[in-house]
């Protein structure tokens, strides 16, 4: 499957783990700090994945002057 990461934007090809939550564990990403967007829709952590999926892991943390 293809994983799109941001800040900076880059792509990874990885074997599909069993679900979204496991993907975040494998990539050492804190779930609270990202949204997972699979094939242009939001995905919950229990959703299963396949090798045909394209998943964006979008950071949600912003932190400059507010």
């Amino acid at each position: 499957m293809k994983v799109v990461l941001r800040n900076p934007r880059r792509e990874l090809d990885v074997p599909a783990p069993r679900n979204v939550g496991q993907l975040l564990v494998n990539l050492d990403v804190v779930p609270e700090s990202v949204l997972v967007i699979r094939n242009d829709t939001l995905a919950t952590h229990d959703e299963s994945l396949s090798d045909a999926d394209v998943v964006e892991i979008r950071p949600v943390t912003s932190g400059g002057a507010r």
Partner: protein
Amino acid sequence: MKCRRCRAPAVIDIRRHNAAFCRDCFLRHCREQVRRAIDDFRMIQPSERVLVAVSGGKDSLGLWHLLRGLGYDVDGLYVGLGIGEYSDESGRFARAYADEHGGKLIAVDLRDAYGFDIPDGSRVAHRAPCSACGLSKRYVFNDAAIAHGYDVVATGHNLDDEAAVLFGNVLRWETEYLGRQHPVLPAAPGFARKVKPLVRLGERELAAYCVLCGIDYIVEECPMAVGNRHLGYKESLNAIEERSPGTKAAFVAGFLERAQPLFVSEATEARADLNECVSCGAPTPGEYCAFCRMRARAVGEPIVVGSAR
């Protein structure tokens, strides 16, 4: 995973609520949280004109959309900070939202209006970029709100922002800042009222709200903010939240209920001791306000009495 409310397939899970929501119930949840924050803290009266500080990011555009959806009379204010391609792109997102949704967007370019931008201002005035940026935005938002007759300025500070600021203020026991940290900063001579209607929503919820509403926003982080202390606080709090969901919300809510009132008098005294800036008339504890002093150093000219406003 099923929606807690209607049992339809969920699109987002929120661990601190121990709940998941489908699209429609999640959007309703966001509106309810903002409605509740506005009502609980008496932020905005129905007849008032609201100016939303818009950066082109998820929080400010989400806030604009939510307030419009709740029926408020709300316009946007975008400040061009001159941070290269980042500012160009964030401005495009702000204008695109206004164009697509029929919103009125007031744009102020810092260099055109005041003669400097954030990279120059922070370097010449020896201020951290985020400090120069925050000072400039607070000044311009307040100035524009008063000049254009708005009753209230609404900012996109969310639960994560408030938790991170509180964390930093507690670590350093910044008691005056603790007394001032509240979802509503009342109006005073020279100050428009400032409110934070997103205080009950986390930034992950705001990002999801924008995605589900089809609101395009700038995902990239400001290049000048990378590695700053505020982001470090958020990272630490997220690590705690991962082990103990709900900690951030309890931290902020508990502070507002039980601790913030203990520090109010210090903040009130500091605000009561303000004079008018000799140059621009803005409230300041000294002769000249911090913005005019930074501006004078950035443009390399002496502060001119009565030069602004």
